[in-house]
């Protein structure tokens, strides 16, 4: 009972870990380059949740200097994740660009077929 309570209380971390492992599994198990990138994107996104969750305080506002508010959410992780999102976008964009180039060069984006073609040539 205790452990179920803990789980429900930390549901955001449960979601984070689910997304993290799901994303990583897709990257490892799929041979299609686009699917790999989808998994990678999910994996990266789970980290955004991991950072944002502990930063949020229930009932906390944005950090504004005003005597009316005394409870703030921590702005730093939010800013960090803004940077991490930019990095993630750049990575996925580059990954997709490489996929396009691979498709032009090989005519397929399935990794096993690409390796097959390399072995033939």
């Amino acid at each position, binding site marked *: 009972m205790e452990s179920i309570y803990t789980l429900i209380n930390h549901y955001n971390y449960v979601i984070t870990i689910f997304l993290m492992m799901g994303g990583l599994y897709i990257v490892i198990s799929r041979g299609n380059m686009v699917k790999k990138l989808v998994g990678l994107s999910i994996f990266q996104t789970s*980290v955004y949740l991991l950072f944002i969750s502990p930063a949020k305080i229930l009932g906390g506002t944005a950090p504004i200097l005003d005597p009316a508010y005394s409870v703030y959410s921590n702005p730093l992780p939010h800013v960090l994740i803004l940077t991490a999102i930019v990095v993630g976008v750049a990575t996925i964009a580059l990954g997709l660009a*490489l996929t396009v*180039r691979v498709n032009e060069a090989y005519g397929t984006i399935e990794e096993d077929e690409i390796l097959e073609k390399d072995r033939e040539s």
Partner: protein
Amino acid sequence: MSALLAQLPALQVVVPLLGAVLAAFCRSGRPAYVVALLVSLAMPVVSGFLLWQTLAGGVISYHLGGWKPPWGIEYRIDVFNALVLMVVSAVGALIMPFAWRSVAAEIDEDKQAWFYCMYLLCLTGLLGIAATGDAFNAFVFLEVSSLSAYVLIALGRDRRALLAAFQYLIMGTIGATFYVIGIGLLYVITGSLNIADIASRMPGAFVVQPHAAFAALAFVAVGLGLKLAIFPLHVWLPNAYAYAPSVVTAFLAATSTKVAIYLLIRFAYGVFGEAIDFRTLPIDQFVMVLSLAAMFLAAFVAIFETNVKRMLAYSSVSQIGYITLGIGMANKAGLTGAIVHLVNHAIMKGALFLALGAVVFRIDSARLENLAGIGRRMPLTMTAFTIAAFGLVGTPGTVGFISKWYLVIGALDEGSLLLVFLIVASSLLSLVYVGRVTEVIWFRDTGPAAAKATDPPLSMLVPTLLLAAAVVYFGIDTTWTAGIAGQAATLLIGDTR
């Protein structure tokens, strides 16, 4: 002048970053090359000044934008980073004169400006990782250097370069994301992102949250392990090095894994070393077993490799094993050996891949059978190649000997004769693959592929010979390599061990 000197840590990163933007605006190869050449030649001057300052006066703390640490981003330069900065910028500068002809031969003309832009971005990232004292800032620079490295590798002429770049992208991004997860856990338990500040808060946080601290250690170590190609996580490296353009291979092999190793040492000893005594845990044995596996298995694969570029890439995996072995020993001599091998391996692999780049420039192939007898056609290049190759084995009088000397002392301090034996035995394995190439290039009859080859133009020959000379010079005079590495090791783990 002194105002400029105070800004040196920032200049180390800002100059190549602005240079990259400028190179991108040039759009055509020649002006972009001039920008890249000027910037990369200026960088060793900056890091030279930094090294000189740290040797004279200890730690330089630079507050980016005037924000005090731990709130703002701090660039914190001590002897250790200054040494790494020096290695990266010196290799970056030596490669640039070589790059012009090699790039002109290997990369389409309309892409050359972008090549130099990416090269400078990669340099920015690598120097940034070494300069910064902020854990998250290090992640950003890690990704700046990695993303540009993926592009640089994909510029290789062989279509397999594209797949190699993609695989590196997947592995590298997983590694970087693991690193961020580790940083996130560290931030949650210590409330800080400044590496020095995390280190000082770590002992207290470790008592309260030991599991989170261990999880953070595991994530950071695996993440950086992917970037530095520690043994089972090295699969991206051979293809990436084999199919990238020659200049890129030389640059990445000499610098990018080294910078990741620097960051790992910084975390292992600077952050976690304060709180967790590694000798009470089996972590060091674990690292040593992986390192030994790398030293033997990768060297074994290298013996049977027929593409010399791939052979040297596997040799890199094997040599990185020596560095991580020194890290795993966790005593002063071992760590000195790791740091000095970080420098020495950069010099040796720089020389080897540049010499090989000159061969590719002349005969357009790096396959072993095409290299038969090429030593008589390109004597100077191949002399440089041979000197550096024997450095890998650890021949006395070369830098490789110095590294192995310290590692053996570290193993003796550890009280393990078995380790000493294994270090020597793996050197014999590297003698096999080095000997095989040397035999082909010097003692076989000159084949049809090598018949028309001659030594490359001076702009390519001089950097190669300089690096080969450094292999011998630093093998005899070790004040600048082992001396500084010893100081850095003392700084990291103290004189006690």
